């Protein structure tokens, strides 16, 4: 176990690249997922009729998509110097992530220097690597691109903490080497005016393990496209999400798992709570099982707890199966209010209505958070959720139903 050292990156770069087949790899385009392109102009400004934009309030994102962005976001790490960078076209940048919408294409094209986090082969980071993302100017549209490259057999937990006000187009590209174990926590802890669009994409090597945890709490509008594919057989992906949409907030998570190798697994579990007028969440979970993906196992789930009137949660799971030889494939989506029996049980033990509701919501999230497996990340997340519940209670007691 070693601490992260950004200067180590050059030494191991060649080895990591061997695990990356590169952008030239032929990919069948599924109807679930548009073909990617680095060319900004090939992604037209959305009109709202496009399948991938139909849930997004375009008036709130238009300004980010129209004109060229004005700058880049600041990415800093505790106790780290400036992170090494990758220019446009400099591998491994661009080998995993090809932009699938205009927001991601802009982020790619306008971030001249992508931050590069390299975990050399076999290296295990003992501590989570925490990166803070902040915009210097909350009004300007800024971009960012982060490349996480985990060499074969390496282990790391990387926490991306987005704070402050920003209008941000941000991409995260993750290469998980063979038998590497990588956890990426993306914490959207923005001020309430922030708008965040972005694409996160990972490719998981042979028997690699990838976890992505999206936590979307603050911001006016968050729309993340989160994609995973595999670079070898037996890769495992767990995509977890926790979100809390307050009045007026739009939180959209779009997932695409591309089972393009045999014996892989994917588990998608997103949970959200919604409270307040026009609180809105969207979850789109696409899973494609290609003919070559024999013996894979996948399950995706989205659960929403609606805490008051005036909220809306959309959940759209899609499963496209092109081979019959799989272990399992399933999905579920539910949107519901409080369970009367749970509330009664807790209230019969003396908890008042607000306390009972709060405990139920907390438990709903805690169940998922407990599966992250990194205890200080779990604790920090539950503390965030507690704060979110405090706020929700102050703004309007957890009433409804």
């Amino acid at each position, binding site marked *: 176990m070693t601490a992260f050292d950004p200067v180590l990156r050059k030494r191991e770069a060649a080895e990591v690249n061997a695990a990356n087949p590169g952008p030239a790899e032929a990919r069948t385009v599924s109807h679930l997922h548009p073909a990617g392109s680095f060319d900004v102009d090939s992604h037209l400004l959305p009109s709202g009729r496009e399948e991938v934009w139909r849930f997004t309030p375009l008036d709130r994102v238009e300004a980010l998509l129209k004109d060229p962005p004005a700058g880049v976001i600041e990415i800093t790490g505790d106790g780290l110097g400036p992170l090494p960078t990758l220019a446009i076209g400099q591998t491994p940048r661009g080998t995993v992530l090809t932009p699938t919408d205009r927001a991601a294409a802009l982020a790619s094209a306008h971030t001249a220097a992508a931050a590069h986090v390299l975990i050399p082969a076999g290296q295990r980071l003992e501590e989570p690597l925490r990166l803070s993302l902040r915009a210097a100017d909350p009004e300007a549209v800024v971009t960012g691109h982060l490349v996480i490259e985990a060499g074969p057999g390496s282990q790391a937990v990387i926490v991306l903490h987005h704070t402050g006000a920003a209008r941000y187009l941000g991409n995260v590209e993750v290469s998980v080497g063979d038998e590497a174990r990588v956890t990426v926590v993306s914490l959207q802890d923005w001020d309430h005016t922030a708008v965040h669009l972005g694409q996160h994409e990972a490719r998981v090597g042979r028997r690699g393990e990838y976890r992505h945890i999206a936590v979307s709490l603050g911001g006016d509008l968050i729309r993340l496209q989160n994609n995973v594919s595999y670079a070898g057989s037996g890769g495992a992906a767990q995509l977890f999400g926790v979100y809390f949409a307050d009045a007026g907030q739009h939180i959209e998570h779009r997932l695409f798992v591309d089972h393009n190798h045999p014996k892989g697994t994917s588990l998608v579990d997103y949970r959200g709570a919604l409270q307040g007028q026009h609180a809105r969440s969207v979850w789109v979970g696409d899973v494609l099982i290609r003919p070559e993906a024999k013996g894979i196992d996948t399950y995706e789930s989205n659960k929403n707890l609606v805490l008051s009137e005036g909220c809306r949660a959309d959940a759209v799971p899609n499963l496209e199966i092109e081979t019959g030889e799989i272990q399992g494939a399933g999905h579920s989506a539910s949107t519901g209010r409080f369970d009367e029996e749970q509330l009664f049980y807790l209230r019969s033990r003396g908890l008042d*209505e607000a306390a009972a509701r709060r405990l139920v919501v907390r438990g709903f999230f805690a169940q998922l958070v407990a599966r992250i497996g990194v205890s200080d990340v779990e604790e920090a997340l539950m503390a965030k959720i507690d704060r979110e519940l405090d706020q929700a209670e102050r703004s309007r007691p957890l009433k409804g139903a």
Partner: protein
Amino acid sequence: MTTTDSGLVITDLHVSVETEAGPKPILKGVDLAIRPGQIHAIMGPNGSGKSTLAYSLAGHPKYTITGGSVALDGLELAGLSPDARAKAGLFLAMQYPVEVPGVSVANFLRTAKTALGGAAPSLRSWVKEVDAALGRLQLDSEFSSRSVNEGFSGGEKKRHEIVQLELLNPKYAILDETDSGLDIDALRIVAEGVNRYAAQGDRGVLLITHYTRILRYIEPDFVHVFVDGRIAEEGGRELADQLEENGYEKYVKAAAAS
């Protein structure tokens, strides 16, 4: 100290349950007074309204009191929220304890104790108390880190209800078929828990059961036969033995005739 007010006093209680087809009357005039220090057993056929009585006393939102009254040491419970009734000193061990995913037993117990006691118990002594209570019900202390009732066996759920009874120590406890689904050893363990609670001398117990088995361990002061939404007969423990012999038939027939 037994004033006329002391006790859980149920007078001519009428209760309806919310159904899709509208309210349906279930309790049709229940009279019962549980004084401090007394143990009352209620026995009756399936569907006679025993759980309805238990739920409506505890304030379940599906049940509406349409007539009569329930007073706890003089405080009218009708119209009070379930938590207000719990704070007044009422406890219901449920026939089907509810799962609360993601909420640990430890957190649940501590939150309940804090809500009822008005202040959080000191952490160190509380953990000891919880461990001791779990131990008395022969539940492992790792039990406290599990989600409330989730994945508990039937017997574990019932023992967990008695752990709560001991820790929260209410004035009056309603136990709805806490003995159902217990193996012979668990039955004894649960009965000992109830007896410890009752041994304080000033607590009242309403024990709903289908089996005289538990009355071998818990000595009731009164046994009531519950049929068609009301009490059809009252007696001592010999009444339970008669029921064991003859069943409910004569009471059911009498109720149907009336």
